[in-house]
């Protein structure tokens, strides 16, 4: 377990370093996070959204912030107030995936938290205390996007890899 974790950590560190250069240099972006447009010099910086994740112990944090690019292939609302996005990662980022992601068709899971008031009881108060969830529209199915979020393994769901929470996103211009 320790060696696997170390491997994932090392791999993610390598990929995130590489991905920063690759995506920032190659793509011009439009931010959809409600903040200012992301410049080419922007580094991946966490927002305050991680503190509004309910039952935080179920998520094993690997990296506080990682940037990826990929195509959204599915989107659904969850009872915990999060939105569940499945993202087919671009080739340079597939190393972030774990065996568990096979349960999600080999896609990365990306979850903006507290997108609406949750129905699930253990998430209600935590999300109710979140004054500034990621606002604006989320990417639609088929959109090619860059995304920044906390890179975690979901211990409740086969330890699959996620960006959870999603901090910001934007479209990747071809």
């Amino acid at each position, binding site marked *: 377990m320790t060696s696997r974790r170390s491997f994932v950590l090392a791999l993610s560190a390598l990929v995130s370093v590489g991905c920063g250069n690759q995506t920032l240099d190659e793509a011009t972006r439009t931010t959809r996070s409600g903040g200012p447009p992301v410049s080419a010099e922007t580094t991946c910086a966490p927002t305050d959204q991680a503190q509004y994740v309910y039952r935080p112990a179920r998520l094993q944090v690997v990296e506080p912030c990682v940037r990826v690019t990929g195509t959204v292939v599915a989107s659904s*609302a969850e009872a915990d107030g999060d939105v569940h996005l499945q993202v087919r990662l671009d080739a340079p980022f597939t190393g972030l995936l774990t065996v568990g992601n096979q349960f999600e068709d080999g896609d990365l899971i990306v979850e903006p938290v507290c997108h609406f008031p949750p*129905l699930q009881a*253990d998430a209600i108060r935590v999300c109710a205390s979140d004054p500034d969830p990621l606002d604006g529209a989320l990417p639609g199915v088929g959109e090619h996007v860059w995304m920044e979020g906390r890179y975690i393994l979901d211990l409740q769901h086969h330890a699959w890899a996620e960006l959870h929470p999603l901090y910001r996103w934007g479209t990747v211009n071809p």
Partner: protein
Amino acid sequence: MKVPIWIGWIVATTVGFALGTTLSTFLVGATARPLSPVLGGIIFVLLYGLVIGIVIGLAQLPAIPRGGGSWRAWILATPLGAAAGFAVASVVGEILGNTIDPSLNVVIAEGAIESTSGAIVGLGIGFAQWLLLRRLLPNGRWWIVTSVVGGALGYGAAAAVLEVLDVPLLKANLVPSFGAILGLLVGVSQSLVLWSSESRGAGTRGVRLTT
């Protein structure tokens, strides 16, 4: 043919929960964010429960047994019970969630958390409504018990169905589906008391309100 009052109750409660959760989710979610920092979000949760309770109370009005108290009292009691229930349930649910080992099977863990929280929501609503129904129903105390059981089963079932079963229609209509499943189980459970009273002919026939 006259529809038995317990059937009307199940329909009204199911519709009330479905509409209530939907309206509250979108209305409170869109307008109450400025209240989020107050008391760690508890005011937000109280408002959330209040709106759900108002809609549940309104939906149940036509199905309340004759002599069930004034409609004003019903519209007041149900939201207050729901608000209190959701507020306490949200705190208890969070504590349970942070206590249970995250490596425990997700169905068991979520089932325990959601059922316990649902029981508390049921207790809030059931107790508030019992205050108005206790003089009408000879077995009125069971109203609280059935509300607790219905809330526990309903919350557990709703979470399980939407988490475990990948039914596209339900997933696409997540909020009303959750509310409808919860309301159905609460309604069925509570209706046992009405059915029992109706069988005894204990003044529950008819669908008139005292004004």
